[in-house]
């Protein structure tokens, strides 16, 4: 089995304003981008279950020119509100790194 780091040169999470959480999955090359898209792993359902939001609130957008998949959803806690432990939302991708994905074809 493979992990996200086998497919991606960069995985990050970040604020898109204080009320929105966004993820960038930047594939290593065209081959891994196509393969990552084909796994369907980065689905609205995955993020809905991880961050306890409705699937309809999760937007997944492939960006071919950047060989990237973008995912945006409501921020689980408003930035800076009581209970927020991640001001820049920079570590929210953490649990995804352990996710298992189909082995890449050599």
């Amino acid at each position: 089995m493979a992990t996200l780091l086998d497919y991606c040169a960069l995985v990050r999470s970040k604020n898109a304003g204080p009320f929105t959480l966004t993820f960038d999955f930047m594939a290593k090359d065209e081959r891994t981008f196509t393969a990552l898209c084909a796994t369907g792993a980065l689905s609205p359902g995955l993020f809905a279950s991880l961050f306890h939001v409705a699937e309809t609130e999760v937007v997944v957008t492939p960006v071919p020119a950047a060989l990237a998949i973008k995912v945006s959803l409501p921020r689980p806690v408003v930035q800076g509100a009581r209970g927020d432990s991640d001001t820049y939302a920079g570590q929210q991708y953490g649990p995804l790194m352990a996710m298992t994905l189909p082995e890449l074809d050599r």
Partner: protein
Amino acid sequence: MEHRILAPTGALGAGFDLTGFSRGVALRPHVIACDAGSTDSGPSALGSGRPKLSDAAVARDLRHLLRARADLGVPLIIGSCGTSGRDDAVDHLAGLVRDLCRADGLRARLGRVYADQPADRLTRLWDEGRIRALPHAPAVTRETFADGHVVAMMGAEPIEALLEDGCEVILAGRASDTALFAALPHLRGADPGPTWHAAKTIECGAACAVPPSANGLFAYVRDDHFDVTVLHPGARLTARSVAAHTLYENADPFRVIEPSGVLDTAGASYEEIDDTTVRVRGSRFEPAGEYTVKLEGARLAGHQTVIVGGVRDRVVIRRLPELIDMAQGYFAAKITDVFGGRVDPADVDIDFRLYGAGAVLGAHEPDKHDPAELGVLITVTAPEQETARAVATFVAHAASHLPMPEYDGLVTTIAYPFSPPETDRGPVYEFTLNHVVTGITPTELFRSSVEAL
């Protein structure tokens, strides 16, 4: 027609390399623009008026920009002064500009645009149904607009008005980052598609360079495309790194919303001219049917005292979550007792974050592993600092001597690195708005002033 823009750094005060900057100046830009603010570091700057970066760091950058501007005879535009773009932050930066100009013998026509929104104006707009919630907006009432500090995020038009007035240094309150770079080309009649996409690409400075840096970028906006080039020696730009920048901190990578319309990059193509320059074609700007201006608000959420500690004993690590739950009841009773009923326990928030056991992701942490050490961050938030501190002192004391059922006798359950363990954080703030004002002219919510230096 060509419009050349120098973006020296992603944020005024973040610094930039002078070799790359000199290269940018030598390319004879028509305008130098730089953003100085963001909501990215949280609600504190807007709530308190205290900027994220120091005066020393801001003045260092500003001095180079003012000298270059004077040499070139072109405008310098700074947006979202003092991180928040509050009126007092604009005036504070104006003070730094005056000092630097005096010290360096520079003259300039200085324009300021203010973005603070008085509460009575906002409540009137609210009553008229002209304030609309954006996605994920918090609940507001009529009273929200008078609670805390509110700024509106200007588009390019208030800045264009000062350019038309001949201003050479423009200090803007809260402003769309892109608007600072788009204002001059827009005023000179450039195609808005390449203009706004170039602005979006360079507003973070060399963040889209390989490797990313705090240094600058240079854009050439032409009739049906724009070129973007990196200035810092050794840095590169690739078609992909430029294309990828539309992802950064945006919810939607293809549609960037501005007050006057939407930048649509879905049809854009990216071509490497050489190692340091990328050409972008096919960007479109769709004018909005209705001009909207976004509001940002932050209000006081209380005063805070924090305690940091650590736990190494496995027995304590295992017991801590349940003991903390039990301790909350004890703390509530203690608050009532200590303050003789003058402080309502419901007004004091005592929060324990266990680093190593889901502190970052909280309830969303799927991986409940067994740490060897546990970091403990205790935050006490109360209406007054004195109360927060008083509560924190007995919380720190009680938390370090939690009763351990496994042990016969008193143990110290938390390792404190500081004496005293409590540190006052002062006032803390929270965001109040994610709304837009509708049915307005582009300049009506902003005031400006002009002076000769």
